[in-house]
């Protein structure tokens, strides 16, 4: 029909005029975001980690295969007994080798490992956070919108059952069946983390659907889908940003904890595995340069997710 | 006799960006003993802030910028056996007590004012429905109020008094053992009034006492307030946006707009001899039940924001009678009777007399005639945003 064509904007002027206010709004949103100091700090941290994940080679002094005293692969010589005894080596700046955060017991540079591991953490955080939002938010919306019907009842009982699921044993069984891969660990984390998301969004939806603008949309003839996605969802987005951030941070830490327990894909590089190694090799009290960086990196990444989430909540919330 | 005398009271709310909301700006009025005084105005005119500030119940970012609140009564420890301020306290320059024994409430600390709340000044809050604690019996809440403020009372006496108070406001005394949720809306309101009267205060501050009530119940509560006043001689300061309720119960009132008092005086004068463009506009803009054919005219524009307002008259942007002077400075209160008889402006000296903050009350007759004409209000160009 004619309207359909009209909607797609046949002349450029109309399209420009349609989008202008939106771009203007984005600009205003950015201005408001930058008013939050912690939001900006979070963003800076996240940008650094993102760059580390995309182009680690630019930042890392060595590759992850680099070994102290010997250098980059191909590895042709072996370490002398003296050299082995000096590992893990504290930070060294050129003498006998360059490793600003020292090395681990195998002679790999901590800084390089740290930088190369960022990718893994980013992947797990974003994937688990997005996955749990993608499951939790729509289910919460549907459950809330059809509150007190069988749909709501079914979703809520399912959530109750999932809440009863013990996280660790479940994950151990999951990886036992499907193998220890990063993807499986993400699934394991997301399976439990969407629950809070769903329940909070449902509660919010229950109250939002009583607002008179939702009734007004019904009177105008809006379909349920339109009401859910145009009128209710934009108003639950602020809290779902917070949950996305929380879930992302939670996933990064959960993965590290799992790795610490030995549940990790040890072919990958990750901060959790770095921590697991220092434990299993017994250097916790001896090699601070090995212990602190992955711990701090984990903390900073989780914090940056939180900072960004809270700032986004404020930016997207019109009532401030 | 004057019970409460508010002089040049200015209240501000601090805002993060360093500006301030001038919620009330150099407001003066006085309440006599045994009278009902009304503060009437639209939302955001500062009436509730003003009332809260009298007893230091402002929000955290609100503060009294300047002015005095002279109240005829004083702290228990400053009073002699008659309840009047001791001479030694009056003579003490550090204590905010005036020669006639009035205490400046604005200068008291929060701890000091707590001793005066309820005992001397009681409050019926805006949401009286929520003022009752759901987990205590209604009677016990009144007893607690009595015991806290009059520790010498025995428990049995307090209980008797609570039941007596409930009965006086029209609640069966044995309902004292009920919880708030067992009360209907009107009964809750009555119970809150009984609670406010627990320590027989001199002043009752009622913030929108009937707004949440249905009209028949409102009617009964208004009757109840009138009866209480006759019985106890308590002064009532009523805050409301409902002009018809105010017209009915108030002896005198102040019409507030944008944090300023625009007109004040006896209720008959305000409605019968209206002398301010804002009040004239208000009168035009609400329907009455008694007249069949009326033409309502609204005041164009919207109320001003009170963030760092400029010095001009707060109403001038919506006022069809605004002149050059109005932009320079907000007008002082002029004496209306004087202006009418002599045709000259003289600043009001008596807070009780009919006063109006308008530079043009020397041409009052003209204003009143023009205000009745709809075109006066619609023809001016208003910046709506």
């Amino acid at each position, binding site marked *: *029909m004619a*309207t359909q*064509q*009209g*909607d797609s*904007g046949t002349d450029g002027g*109309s399209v420009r005029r*349609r989008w202008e*206010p939106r771009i*203007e709004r984005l600009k205003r949103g950015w201005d408001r975001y930058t008013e939050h100091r912690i939001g900006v700090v979070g963003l800076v941290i996240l940008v650094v980690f993102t760059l580390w994940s995309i182009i680690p080679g630019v930042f890392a002094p060595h590759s992850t295969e680099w070994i102290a005293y010997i250098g980059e692969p191909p590895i042709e010589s072996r370490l002398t007994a003296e050299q082995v005894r000096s590992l893990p080596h504290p930070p060294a700046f050129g003498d006998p080798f360059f490793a600003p955060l020292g090395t681990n017991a195998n002679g790999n540079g901590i800084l390089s490992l740290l930088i190369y591991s960022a990718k893994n953490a980013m992947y797990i955080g974003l994937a688990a956070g997005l996955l749990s939002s993608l499951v939790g938010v729509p289910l919460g919306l549907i459950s809330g919108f059809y509150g*007190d019907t069988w749909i709501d009842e079914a979703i809520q009982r399912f959530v109750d059952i999932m809440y009863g699921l013990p996280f660790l044993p479940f994950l151990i069984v999951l990886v036992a069946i499907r193998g220890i891969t990063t993807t499986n660990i993400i699934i394991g984390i997301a399976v439990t983390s969407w629950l809070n998301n769903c329940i909070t969004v449902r509660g919010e939806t229950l109250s939002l659907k009583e*607002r*008179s*603008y939702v*009734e*007004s*949309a019904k*009177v*105008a*003839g809006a*379909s349920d889908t339109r009401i859910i996605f145009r*009128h209710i969802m934009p*108003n639950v987005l602020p809290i779902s940003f917070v949950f996305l951030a929380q879930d992302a941070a939670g996933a990064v830490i959960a993965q590290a904890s799992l790795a610490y327990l030995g549940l990790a894909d040890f072919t990958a590089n990750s901060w959790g595995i770095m921590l697991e190694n220092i434990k299993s090799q017994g250097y916790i009290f001896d090699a601070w340069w090995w212990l602190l960086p992955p711990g701090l990196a984990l903390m900073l990444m989780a914090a940056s997710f939180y900072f960004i989430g809270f700032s986004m909540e404020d930016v997207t919330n*019109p*009532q401030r | 006799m004057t019970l409460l005398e508010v002089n040049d009271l200015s209240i501000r709310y601090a805002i993060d960006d360093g500006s301030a909301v001038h919620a009330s700006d150099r407001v003066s009025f006085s309440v006599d003993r045994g009278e009902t005084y009304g503060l009437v105005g*639209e*939302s955001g005119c500062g009436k509730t802030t003003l009332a809260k500030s009298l007893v230091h119940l402002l929000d955290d970012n609100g503060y009294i910028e300047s002015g005095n609140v002279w109240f005829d009564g004083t702290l228990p420890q400053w009073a002699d056996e008659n309840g009047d301020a001791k001479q030694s306290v009056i003579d003490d320059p550090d204590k905010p007590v005036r020669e006639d024994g009035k205490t400046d409430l604005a200068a008291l600390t929060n701890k000091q004012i707590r001793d005066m709340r309820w005992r001397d000044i009681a409050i019926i809050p805006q949401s009286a429905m929520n003022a009752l604690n759901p987990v205590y019996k209604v009677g016990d809440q009144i007893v607690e109020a009595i015991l806290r403020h009059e520790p010498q009372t025995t428990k049995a006496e307090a209980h008797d008094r609570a039941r007596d108070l409930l*009965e*006086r406001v*029209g609640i069966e005394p*044995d309902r004292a053992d009920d919880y708030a949720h067992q009360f209907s809306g009107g009964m809750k309101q009555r119970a809150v009034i009984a609670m406010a009267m627990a320590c027989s205060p001199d002043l009752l501050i009622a913030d929108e006492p009937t707004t949440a009530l249905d*009209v*028949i*119940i*409102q*009617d*009964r509560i*208004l009757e109840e307030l009138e*009866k209480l006043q006759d019985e106890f001689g308590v002064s009532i300061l009523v805050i409301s*946006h*409902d002009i*018809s309720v105010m*017209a*009915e119960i108030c002896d005198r009132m102040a019409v507030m707009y944008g944090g300023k008092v625009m007109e004040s005086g006896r209720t008959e004068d305000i*409605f019968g001899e209206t002398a301010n463009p804002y009040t004239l506009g*208000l009168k*035009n*803009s*609400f*329907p*009455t*039940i*008694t007249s*069949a054919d009326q033409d*309502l005219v*609204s005041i*164009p524009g*919207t*109320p001003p924001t009170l963030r760092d307002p400029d010095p001009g008259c707060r109403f001038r942007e919506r006022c069809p009678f605004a002149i050059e002077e109005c932009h320079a400075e907000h007008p002082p209160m002029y004496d209306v009777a004087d202006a009418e008889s002599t045709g000259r402006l003289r600043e009001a000296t008596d807070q009780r007399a009919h006063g109006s903050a308008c530079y043009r009350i020397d041409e009052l007759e003209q204003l009143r005639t023009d205000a009745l004409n709809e075109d006066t209000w619609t023809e001016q160009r208003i910046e709506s*945003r």
Partner: protein
Amino acid sequence: MDRAEDREPLVEIDGLRKLFDQSQGIIDTVLGREPQPVRAVDGVSLDIHKGDIVGIAGESGCGKTTLGKMLVKLHEPTEGAIRFDGNDITEMTREEEREFRKRVQMIFQDPFESLNPRMTVYDTIAEPLKINDMVGDYDARRDRVKQVLEDVGLGPAEVYLDAFPDELSGGERQRIAIARALVVDPDFIVCDEPVSMLDVSIRAGVLNLMKELQDEYDLTYLFISHDLSLIRYMCDRAGIMYLGNMVEQGPTDDIIDDPKHPYTEALFDAVPDVELGEERRRANATGEVPSPRNPPSGCRYHPRCAHIIPPDGWDGTQEAFRRAYQFKLKVRRGDLSAESAESADIADAEALVEHGLTLDIPEEYRSETEIESGGSKVDIARIDLPPAARETLVDAAGAVLDGDTEGALATLDEAITTPCESRRPEPQPAGTREVACHLYDEPGFEELDSSTAGIAPAAAED
């Protein structure tokens, strides 16, 4: 005079009922308690004629908003029919419903809630157009939105189009809500307390705008409000609701100048007025609105009514009967019991009767003894009770003092009866209007009414 009768009604409401099932708690289910639905609207019939502004007034909880929401299909009626332009709106096909949505709109009470805070003014107003595929392309839509904005007095429209609701004042928001309702060019708009959240100085502008738009857009309004002076200002016809029932309906001026139903009378007496001078009469009604979950039998208003009808053969005054009836109600509610008598120091039956015969009404309607005692007793000698009734009351009071409330109630139920309690009043034509009250259904009155009702009062008015 009643021009309305000559025209086809636009909306016909017939025996409309809406019961809200309150979901039961587990305890109720275990104890096998019957669910008590809230009877929000309980048998309302009303015709709305094209071009009229019909007001619905009543206190909170009387069902006026539920009625309005049923008219725009936000609630489905439990029983009864609503016909819009001849079609039953409860049984519409999808296509018919689409058409209906374009012709019927609603304006909500709170402009701070009825606009989506995340949608710009343009998006808000254009939404009904988009949903109903009404106006061609983006540019045409934008022009239409601008035009409506100018119509509701928000010009120049460009200033507002991209604004969000939180940048606007209450008055501007409500104008935008009106624009949203108008944009589809509807025939009928339900207005639910459209100005109650607005400041007084702004209200008149919105009300006048609504009146102007009525002419311009050829609209019919249902105007719901608790504020009777607004109803008087706005409406040609009005209906007064009480506990889900329409107690009186007819031309607004007639209802207000000469209320026929005792509830209407009390309602108007209770409205304060700025007119100075003479003392206003207070509302002569006892108690408060009972719960709509368990409304009184017969006439919903009878427990509070000042004009409750004594049974045939009652020798005393009507006032005496009202007091005797209140006595019965107090026993039934448990307000009069052995314990309460004890705590009020009442020892003998006579004293309890004197206590129970009091009325909880404004002072001007009370007896001298009541005023002196602060409303706690009456002088039975001064009340014109028939001797038999007096004996019944004393007997019942004696039973109450003995703790036998059931026995007391049985005695009272037999002697103190009223048609208001036993029969539900049907809306009766009375003059220019319909009144649901037994006072107006004496046989003689009915006969006179059907033939001459339309003429007689009109002549009187001229």
